[in-house]
Each structure stands twice: as C-alpha cells, then as structure tokens.
C-alpha cells in the first residue's frame, strides 16, 4: 500500500477525484485544533505555575479583562464559519450530487448479513426488475424477476466489485435486511445501506489497485467479516472480467 501524503496524520492514501476535499478539511481542522489546544495549554500551564498558592501570594478578587480571549473566541467563530461555508458545504454538495452523465457506469449494491451483492445491468445497460420475493440461495441473491428479459444479461457478483479507473461510477445502495454502511477508505466513500431505501452515491477512481470494502455500521455477529474487495481495473481488465462473467452466465443458462 502506498504511503499517505500527509504523514503527520495517519490518513489512508486517497485515489478518488473528490477525496482531496475531505482530506483537506480534516487536515485544516486538525491544525485549528492543535493551535487552540496549544494556545490554551500554554496559558493553562503558565497559570498553574505562576498562580500556585505560596507564602506571600494572594488571589486577586478582580477578574482579568481578557480582551485577547474575547478576540480569540471571535476568531474561532470566524474560522468555523469559513470551514463550514467554504470547505464543508461545497464539497458535500459535490459528493451528494450524482452527475447526470451517460458515460457513467451504474451498479446496484445490496448489503446483506454479511456480504455485498454487486448487481450490474449487463450489456443492455438496463437493470432487470427485482423483487424481494424472488430472492433465494440458489443463485438469485438480488431477487431478479425471471420473467423480465432485461434481467437476462444482468451480472451479479458476490463481494467482488470490479470497475474501471477514471470513469464515473454511480452506485445505488440498498440492503436486504439490516442497516450496513458501505465503506471504501481509499476512495473516501462511506454511505449507509438502509433497507427500504435506495441511496445513490458516486465516485471516480484515479488509480488502479485492489482495496478492501468494509462495513462501518454494526450489522450483527458477522459485522467484522463483511468484507468485500474493490478491483479498480484498467478499462481493458474490466472488459476482460466483464466478458468472462457474461460467458459464465451463458454457460449456466444453456
């Protein structure tokens, strides 16, 4: 694994187009935190030494004017407002606004205790109809309607999430049973998968590689092993994988 660019904070490396904004905010906030803690700390330690009880030393009844402290408080308010309005809000708006581009790969990911099902629409680009009543353990883990022709070429992959690098990926996230949370650290992606809801997220990877998908929301006794793998492929590798799955599908149906 590649080392983080920000060695003083143990952030994982970031291979996404939007992740730098997350990291930037985390880093700036931590500088602010350290500055405040150090300023408070110096004052605190100084007071503890200077104003200790001893012979001939008396406490003063009058409070100090503390103009500096008031200025510092206003400073904190300004800094927080800047972080909120200029860093957090725009980045979040970008993260939440799924791009309307025809060039995106759309995948459905359905969480269950304790695995991730990746549902690709196949060559036709159209997802087959699904319904919970069709879900079974005999190869229909996402509940594809056998009567729907659009579903014939749909590819379902367990725990293995292949997608090409440098391409917008849109994931519609849902869950069959309990709440899970879909997490890929190196892409700075985290989103709860809530049963009864379909939540879209998007991202674009900037580098190929193989990375862990983990679950961030307690989902039962196997929460810890709800591990998937994200394969960020070159377009050629992705095409190769996709064709192999198609061939498997045809082999199975014949």
């Amino acid at each position, binding site marked *: 694994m590649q080392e983080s660019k920000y060695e003083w904070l143990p*952030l994982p490396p970031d291979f996404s187009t939007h992740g730098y904004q997350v990291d930037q905010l985390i880093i700036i906030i*931590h500088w602010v935190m350290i500055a405040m803690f150090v300023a408070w700390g110096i004052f605190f330690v100084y007071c503890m030494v200077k*104003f200790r009880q001893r012979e001939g030393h008396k406490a003063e009844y009058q409070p100090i004017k503390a103009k500096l402290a008031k200025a510092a408080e206003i400073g904190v308010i300004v800094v927080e407002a800047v972080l909120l309005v200029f860093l957090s809000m725009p980045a979040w708006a970008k993260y939440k*606004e799924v791009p309307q581009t025809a060039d995106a790969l759309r995948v459905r990911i359905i969480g269950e205790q304790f695995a991730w099902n990746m549902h690709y629409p196949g060559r036709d680009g159209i997802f087959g109809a699904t319904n919970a009543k069709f879900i079974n353990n005999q190869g229909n883990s996402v509940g594809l309607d056998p009567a729907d022709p659009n579903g014939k070429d749909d590819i379902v992959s367990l725990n293995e999430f292949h997608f090409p690098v440098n391409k917008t990926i849109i994931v519609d996230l849902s869950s069959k049973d309990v709440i899970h949370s879909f997490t890929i650290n190196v892409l700075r992606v985290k989103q709860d998968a809530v049963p*009864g809801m379909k939540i879209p997220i998007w991202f674009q990877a900037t580098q190929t590689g193989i990375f862990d998908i*983990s*679950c961030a929301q307690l989902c039962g006794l196997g929460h810890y092993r709800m591990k998937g793998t994200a394969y960020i492929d070159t377009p050629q590798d992705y095409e190769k994988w996709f064709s192999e799955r198609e061939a498997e599908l045809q082999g199975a149906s014949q």
Partner: protein
Amino acid sequence: MSDVVHPGHAAEAHHHEELGFIRKYIFSVDHKVIGIQYTITSLVFLLFGFTLIMLLRWQLAYPGQPISWLGQLLGETRMPGGVMLPEFYNQLGAMHGTIMVFLGIVPLAVGGFGNYVMPLQIGAPDMAFPKLNAASYWVYFIGGIVMLYSFFVPGGAAQSGWTSYPPLADIAPTGQTWWLIGMVFLITSSLLGSMNFIVTIVQLRAKGLSFFRLPFFVWAQFVTSFLLLLAFPPLEAAAVFQLMDRVAGTSFFLPSGLVVSGTPLQISGGGNPLLWQHLFWFLAHPEVYVLILPALGIVAEVIANNTRKPLWGYRTMIYSIIFLGVMSFIVWAHHMFMTGMGTTMSTFFQTTTMIISIPSVIILTALLLSLWGASIRYNVPMLFALGFLPMFAIGGLTGLPLGLTTSDIHLHDTWYVIGHFHYVVAPGTIFALFAGIYYWYPKVTGRQMNPTLGKIHFFFSFIFMNGVFFPMLFQGMAGLSRRLYDQTIYEHGKAVQGLSVYTSWSAWLLAIAQLPFIFNFFYSIWKGRKVDSDNPWQSTTLEWSAPTPPPHGNFPTPPEVYRGPYEYSVPDKPKDYSPQFEREG
C-alpha cells in the same frame, strides 16, 4: 459517623423520631440517603461496565486467543474453550455503552451528586417531593436489575449496540426485549427525578438566594433536568415502539420486503428504520449534555474554591449552558449524516453543530481565565478538576471534524468517534465526578479521603486514560471501523493492530489505578482524618454551613443568603472567603 460537635445536632435529635434501620437507610426519603444510594449503585455499575470492556479489550488486542479459565467461568454460550464468540463480543459492547451512560454516569452525576448536594446548596430541608425521589431511585434500581438479568436469558443480553438500531435490534435475540424493558424503567426514573429537581430549585431556595446567586453546580443541574424532562419522552415512545415491533408484530421500524438469510421476514412492513434513529438521537444528543453539564458544575465549584477567587464570567457561563441546553435539541441529526441525508438537512444540522461548539469554547475559556490571578491550592479535588480541562478540550475539539459533513465521510463510524466521545465522558466527566467525590466526601462522612492515595489515583488515571483513548483517534483516522470483532482481517486494521494492544494494556492498568481509590473510599469512612470544622475547604456555598454530616432536615435553622456564590479574596476582609451564609463575610 462523626463526632464533630455542632450546636444543631442536639436540637435536631428531638425533632425527628428515630426511624428503624430499613426506613433510615434502605427505603429512606431523605435526599442525602437517596443520593448516597445512587452514588454507591452507580459506582458499582461503572465498575461493572468497565469490567465488560476490559473483557472485550482482550479480544481486540489478541483476537481469537483463548483464556481457558475465563471460558470455564463464562460458559459455552459466551467463550467456548476460552475464545470469545462474536455474539458475546457484541453483547459486551452494547451493554458497556448502556451501563456506562444510563446506569453509571447519569445516575452518579444527577442522582448521586444532584440529590445530595443540590438541596444543601440551595438551603432546602429536602427535595420538594421526597417520596417521588425515593421512587425514582427504586425504579432506577429495578431497571438496573433488568439489564443485569438480560445477560442470563437465552441468546444473551442486547447485542445491537447501545444505540439499538433497527432492523438489527428488531430481529435480535430475546436480550433486546429485556434491554427495552430496562430502558423504560431507567427513562421513567430520570423523568421522575428531573421534575423533582426543577420544582425543588424553583421553590425551595433559601431566603436571599436569587437565581443569580445560585452556585453554578445548581444551574448545571437545573438545565440538565430540563434536558432530561424534554428529551427522554421521545425515547420512551421509541422504546415502546421497538418493543411492539418485537413482541406484538408491528412494523414501526421495519420496511416491507426484508429478507434475512435468504428467507423473507413475515412482517406487516411499511415502517422506516430511520425513524428510530431520529427518535433515539433526539434524546441521545441532549443526553451528551446531561453527561457533561453536571461535570462542568462540579469542576466550576472545585475551581472557584481552590483558586480562591470568583469564577471568571459567572453569568456568561450560565447563559452559555442555557444556550447549550436549547441548542442541544436541534443538532441530533449530525449523528446521521451518512444515512442518505441530502444537502438541505445536512446544511441545517452542520450549521447548528458548529454553533453549539461556541458556548462550549466560552465555558472552557472562562474556566481557564478563572486561573489567572489565582492562588491555586493543589489538593486532590483540584487535580481532578484541572485534569478535566485539557481532556474536555480534546473531547470537544475532536468533535469538530465529526460535525462537518465532508470530514465526517471519512471519520464517521470509525474509532475516531469512540476516541472523541470517550475523551468527553471518561477523562472528562468521570474526572469531574472523582473531583466531586473527593470534594464533598468530608461533608458526607466527616472525614477526609487520604490525599496521598488520591494523588496516586489521579496521576496514574491521567496517564492511562490518555493511553486508552488517544490511540483510538489514530486508528479512526486510518479508517478503521468501530465495533469490529477482529480488525486484523483488514490490511488497514492489521497496520494499526499494535495500537489496540497498547490501548488494551492501558485499560487494564487503568483498572489497577482505580484500586487506591476503591480502598481509600472505604478505608476513609472509618479511618480517614477527621475534619475539624463543618467547612474544611473554607468554601462559600451553603452546603458547608450544614452540620457534618447533615442530619435529616439538613439545617438547624433555615439559612439565609447574603451574597453571590463565589466571593473569595474580597479586598479588605479578614479571611479570603466570604460565605453566602455569613452576614459579615
């Protein structure tokens, strides 16, 4: 317990008929006995909750390694062959959180300190409704027994986290039903207590004790009571809803079309899992301030007393906690940024979250400014109160990146969150509670706790608390999810596994650092140095004018108040403190 002679004692004995042991010490309606009952019970629960997490930390440090004697002790359903099962791991985690929050810290901070100290500080003979007060303790006690019993039902105790998110909690084993019943008792207890506190503070203040002469601790309890009163009912409703989902076939929190392990659930459906989260956090965010406000109250008392000067910005601090209290009702959804929330809702909640950080900064600054120009006495309560300040600062500051949606993407549901709130509650609130115990112990028992043991307790606790919680911030930053039974199956988990070992050892050593306290607490009841006056810390507030220990009814004559709460080192006075209760200070 004490043979300090006080003129009030003899007269007092005639007022009250002698009560039997049971009426006097068990089913007492005296706020002080109830306060002590709360204190002892909640300290036992704190120790128990700590024990649960020490067990859990074994699995985190050494995943899958057996401890055979523990396996024999806990049985096949928990640790077969000495290896902890994931089910049991989840029970330990869920019950640790529940016990620490609802059975440990809140009952100690509010039920214990609030009950014992608040009526004395306002010069009241007792709480406004003494029987209601006793009822609130016993309802809490039953809630605690129900929670403990749940470990022994088939399938074990609740295991869906202290937050009990459905659908997981709806389909969890029987222990969850007991958890919900226990919660209904605990919530009821808090509601009874909070009403009693509010009425007492409004109605029973001594003559001359206006609101802006109240000690800060009383103000903190006052605001806390409003939070409990207003925030708990939604959770009580939510707990009953979840109970109905589990036992009566409703689907408040269950959407249609759930399939568990390949089998469709036979449910009515149509519910929404996020409804629970809204109801839960509508309580649980104000609850955070229930955990912290009484602690701030104690710290303010101890700091004023040991700096020998008035608190800096007494009124500013009061306005700040009122503002905190109000704001705490409109920040709850910052716990839910990753539930699919859009930009409108999240803009509102991250803005309110930034706003609520301001009064906390003001309070901390005021406490620090109180040190300037002081004459600081370094006794044990003061050490804990001073230790509280930087720890609370770390806890508060680490809340910032979690309160902004964008930085929360990476940090949400990681160990960073755990590090953050433990800094607020463990070396924060618990240090303040220790400060309070050492500070008011002489009033309760007539004896001082041993200061040497107290200092040992403080320094080692301070070191090991940081040893436990600081590495968590690093692990979270590295992207490690919380509540993992075995993090080593992930590359990034393996990379920070060493910190888990370090944390676990710090936790076990932290437990050893509590031994001097436990010994001191009991030893000093009988062998501690006797106090030579009713006011051993030379304090200004009303509780120190009462006989030691205060008898039933507290004050021989109704006290009168002549000045503000923190008149220390007033110029041209013979002594450096001017008590509220002395006409000529």
